[in-house]
């Protein structure tokens, strides 16, 4: 069952002199099993949009329906069980004495018995690739990368059907970033979670997402598969967003050589295409 936004608007501090319209008339459907990316500049309403999904914010007008639950109804517990929310720098939310207790926080709140809690925590650390030995440590004495995994495990432990992430790769080194996206792909493809990710990094979005929505000043201006969104050079430039580097490179190459007419979103794809072209045309000189 999908996430549906129907004509949703949201205004901060409504009625006061500091009121600010964050979202205007959002109509959006995110299907089950999608890997959905929301991109836009800071202040474009991305964070507001995702907070509407699990009822942290209630829409000012319109409605948000998640798996058949209207978020303005009082079924927050059920809703939050289905929607896992990973905020930016989730490691800032760690608080308990041991890694185990911290991960178990959510499932204990749901009233599971210790046996079930144990099972849930174990499957969460397996998914996140956290070693069992870490469970008895304090969450404050482990490394930064481990902290983020533990914090995410604390969300995944509730086995949400939809996982919402705000800049999951922020502050990670290139290796950590690659691992993070590999993990998200796995959660999406193998576990079958719907992933909704907010990002302003075009490269990340282009390589992992199935669908992309672009937010500008609280409105959705583009919404399609990444190949189409990232091929619209003119429109992206107008809203001050870049194409991924490899897409720009292949565009420039295509212009020069008058070959390669498709849109390239990953370095791997581009490599294959160039090699193939070299093989058929018989040498570098031709290109």
């Amino acid at each position: 069952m999908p996430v549906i936004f129907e004509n949703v608007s949201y205004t901060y501090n409504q009625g006061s002199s500091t009121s600010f319209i964050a979202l205007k008339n959002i109509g959006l459907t995110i299907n089950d099993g999608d890997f959905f990316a929301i991109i836009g500049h800071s202040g474009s309403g991305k964070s507001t949009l995702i907070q509407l999904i699990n009822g942290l914010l209630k829409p000012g007008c319109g409605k948000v329906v998640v798996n058949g639950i209207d978020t303005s109804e009082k079924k927050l517990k059920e809703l939050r069980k289905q929607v896992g929310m990973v905020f930016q720098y989730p490691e800032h939310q760690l608080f308990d004495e041991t890694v185990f207790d911290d991960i178990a926080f959510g499932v204990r709140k749901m009233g599971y018995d210790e046996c079930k809690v144990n099972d849930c925590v174990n499957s969460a650390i397996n998914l996140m690739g956290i070693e069992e030995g870490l469970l008895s440590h304090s969450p404050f004495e482990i490394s930064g990368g481990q902290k983020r995994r533990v914090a995410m495990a604390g969300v995944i432990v509730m086995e949400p059907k939809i996982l919402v992430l705000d800049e999951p790769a922020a502050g990670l080194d290139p290796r950590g970033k690659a691992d993070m996206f590999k993990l998200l792909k796995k959660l999406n493809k193998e576990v079958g979670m719907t992933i909704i990710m907010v990002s302003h990094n075009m490269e990340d979005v282009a390589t992992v997402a199935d669908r992309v929505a672009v937010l500008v000043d609280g409105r959705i201006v583009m919404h399609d598969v990444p190949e189409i969104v990232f091929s619209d050079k003119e429109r992206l430039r107008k809203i001050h967003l870049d194409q991924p580097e490899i897409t720009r490179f292949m565009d420039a190459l295509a212009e020069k050589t008058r070959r390669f007419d498709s849109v390239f979103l990953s370095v791997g794809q581009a490599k294959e295409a160039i090699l193939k072209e070299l093989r058929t045309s018989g040498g570098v000189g031709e290109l």
Partner: protein
Amino acid sequence: MKVNIGQYVVGNSLMHRADPRTKILITFAFMALVLMIDTFFGFALCLACVSILIISSKIGLRSVLRGMKPIFFLLIFTMVINIFTAPGNIIFSFWVFNISDMGIIISVKTVFRLLLLVSGASILTFVTTPTVLTDGIESLLSPLKKLKVPVHEFAMMMTIALRFIPTLLEESDKIIKAQSSRGADFESGNLIKRVKAYVPIIIPLLIGSFMRANELATAMEARCYKGGEGRTRMKVLAFSKNDIILVVMFMALAGAEIIIKYGIKTI
């Protein structure tokens, strides 16, 4: 999220531009003056001056009244006590309550006095930013340095504390959202349960603050900060024409009040 600390209203009036030390000293002197006044004419004069200041500095009557809200209960309370307890000619009575003419006069005067005291103090915070205010306090208290009181350090602590209130609010907002997404519940259960529910908020906040304090201390030391000794300022507090005008205006008011109180009888 936008948070206003104190109640500073942006502006460029005489009061805004004056030196914080002048404003602090005049505020105290004004309060002393208000405590001295005991005639309706005196109160009226003071009230007129305060109104002129509020209008000329463009604070807006609404924000001044909003600032008065916390003392509203106190006002009513003192008024009631005074009305029923002051001696004098009884003009109205029922059951055990007696209302005298003196009682009414005294209670009205007390209300005036309280209103003037509070509005005087709040004008100071309306036209001075918290940081400038701490600068002014530091400068005024600097003679205490001779007695080895760490005045600069206190002022620096106050400035830093004020600076980080919005940051902490933002952070707590974020953590509350993160923990409620994980099923934390702050509204149901008995008192002990509710207090316990805040543990997952307070611990991350404390840890964040310690980390930030540590980083800030390192950053300050890296820029050779070592306390107040030998430290100069980018914005040096300096008296200007504005301060002279303010002082002269206040002297005129004080003079008039003194004449009202002592002069009229002798002249």
